[in-house]
């Protein structure tokens, strides 16, 4: 699509479609509040979930349980939860969008967002991310509508290949 089409089309795909992924390991991931943040299941304990985040540009990271018990693996470098978070973000949004949000430049053709980070620990509270996750799930509870929503014609579902 030419730049002119991009400027003068009502319906263009501005961001690549979200790619479906398995949700059990990383039930929630988002690029918001200047962070890549989300909720990651513990690899060893089915009962436990972590709230993990990496800040845009500074790459300060944090990983803890919901009541702020720090993750044992997230001392000086990224723990497995944070690595999974980045992997799943790349799966969901594509490497370009994740890299752009975190403020890193990937060499042409590279999808290695992890390798391009300069991470340093800086614990941040888990509650805001957790509440965004719950808030996000609340969308599933909203009463259905059968009134036509004509504005959604600007948002065709796509992605069949």
């Amino acid at each position, binding site marked *: 699509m030419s*730049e002119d*089409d*991009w*400027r*003068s*089309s*009502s*319906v*263009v*795909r*501005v961001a690549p*479609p*979200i*790619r*479906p992924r398995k*949700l*059990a390991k990383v*039930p*929630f991931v*988002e*690029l*918001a509040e200047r962070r890549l943040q989300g*909720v990651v299941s513990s690899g060893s304990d089915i*009962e*436990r*979930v972590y709230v993990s985040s990496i800040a845009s540009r500074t790459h300060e990271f944090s990983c803890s*349980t*919901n*009541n702020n018990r720090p993750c044992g693996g997230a001392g000086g470098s990224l723990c497995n939860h944070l690595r999974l978070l980045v992997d799943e973000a790349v799966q*969901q*949004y594509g490497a370009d969008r994740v890299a*752009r*949000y975190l403020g890193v430049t990937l060499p042409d053709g590279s999808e290695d967002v992890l390798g391009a980070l300069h991470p340093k620990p800086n614990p941040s509270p888990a509650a805001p991310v*957790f509440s965004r*996750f*719950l808030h*996000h*799930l609340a*969308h*599933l*509870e*909203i009463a*259905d*509508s*059968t*009134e*036509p*929503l*004509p*504005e*959604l*014609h*600007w*948002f*065709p*579902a*796509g*992605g*069949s*290949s």
Partner: protein
Amino acid sequence: MLANQLAALTEPPGVAEALTVIDGFDDVIVAGLGRVNDATSTGLAGLAAAVADSPLGGPVRAAVEKVVRGGVDDDQVALLAGARTAVFGAVHDALLTSLDAALGRTRSEPAPAVVQEPGQDPAVEGARSWLRDVAIAGWRGVDEDLITAAGQPIESLYPVVARRRLAMVLAGLSEELGACVPIANLPQLPARRWTDLWTRAVLLSRMSTVDASAAPVTNGRLLPLGVDMHEHGTAVQLQLHGVLEDKGQTRLVRASVSAGKVETIAGPGVWPLLHRHPVLLRALAERRCLHLTDMPLLPEGDLLWADDRAAAGDPVDEFATARLALPTTVAPAVAPLNRHPATIGEVVLVEGYRCDGGALVLGGERLGLALDRLPAAGPLSPAHVAASSACLGLLRWNGGAWRLQPMAVQTTVKKKNVTVRTADWAMGPTDPKVAKATGDAVSVLSERAGRLLRR
């Protein structure tokens, strides 16, 4: 649809000039109403001139003068959005008239618009002030803080049914702006698209959706033609196009059902979100007609779907329905405020073509395919379309050209003749590989959230 009908689909006179006016105004919103200069004030003047002979003429001219002097309030924003809507409405009418003429399609007469003021509502006020701030900043000036500020009004508007449309369009727009951060670095902006969405939101922030409880009802038989799917991060809508037979008359109608959604649920995972409409979903998956009892029907051809007023009937073939009914069935009028080219989606049947990948070639005429509108939720793929011999789809106009969005095709898979439709997986994917990969997203998410709550 025949080659000679396709050949007759030329651009109506005046469309190019109207779109030049739109582009001029959209450039103003790219730069921001807070930074009007000589170049951009031409864009505002162009819009005012385009509506000068209409009832909007005087008020829009006054609003433009005020904006150029440096004052922007909600009323001026609404007048500018109204003027842009009027210009696009004229483009819509010209395109649809030429399409109806080419297809030989009869359309019912529109009813006058009934618009209710939204009344006092802090959430609507919040939406208006966000839309004003966006217009002042301009698309180039929209930063992460401004995008985040949309969250509050969206959250308050979403649960209220009468505000749903406003919430949906704000959510879709702000999500897309968020995906483009930092916007200042983008080489080219989707100016028309974003300004379209902004314009729709401004108008929706000035009205309440009409009370539909007084709509007349129908007791007919609905023969499905095809399903169009819409989706953004927090919403999914299924729109069924069909032929309604009622008291010996046939008309083209739509039935729409929508649900809230989260970004992480995509592809075939969206069907379970529509679970509150089991009769509809089952009929689509099993390719059956639907018998309706006292189902409300709006004058614009929209059934207000109530699943308990529908019962699945016999299996039906949509290609047979289309061949028999499309040439003579009356198409619905378009609601006055929905007149925009992006909302045009006219059902057509195309046969006797050769597919060259991106287009159907029909007696020397080419009809481009909107393959990017094939939903990942269903099985219909570009390969099915490429191998097809008949296609039932929606004619769409975008970026200056007509394209066909397939909804069902008669095609060949492994040397067998089959029909493939967008909604074949409405009761879940019939392909075991896809079913395994999809899983039950909603219950996984609730289980994980439950773990967090307990700790």
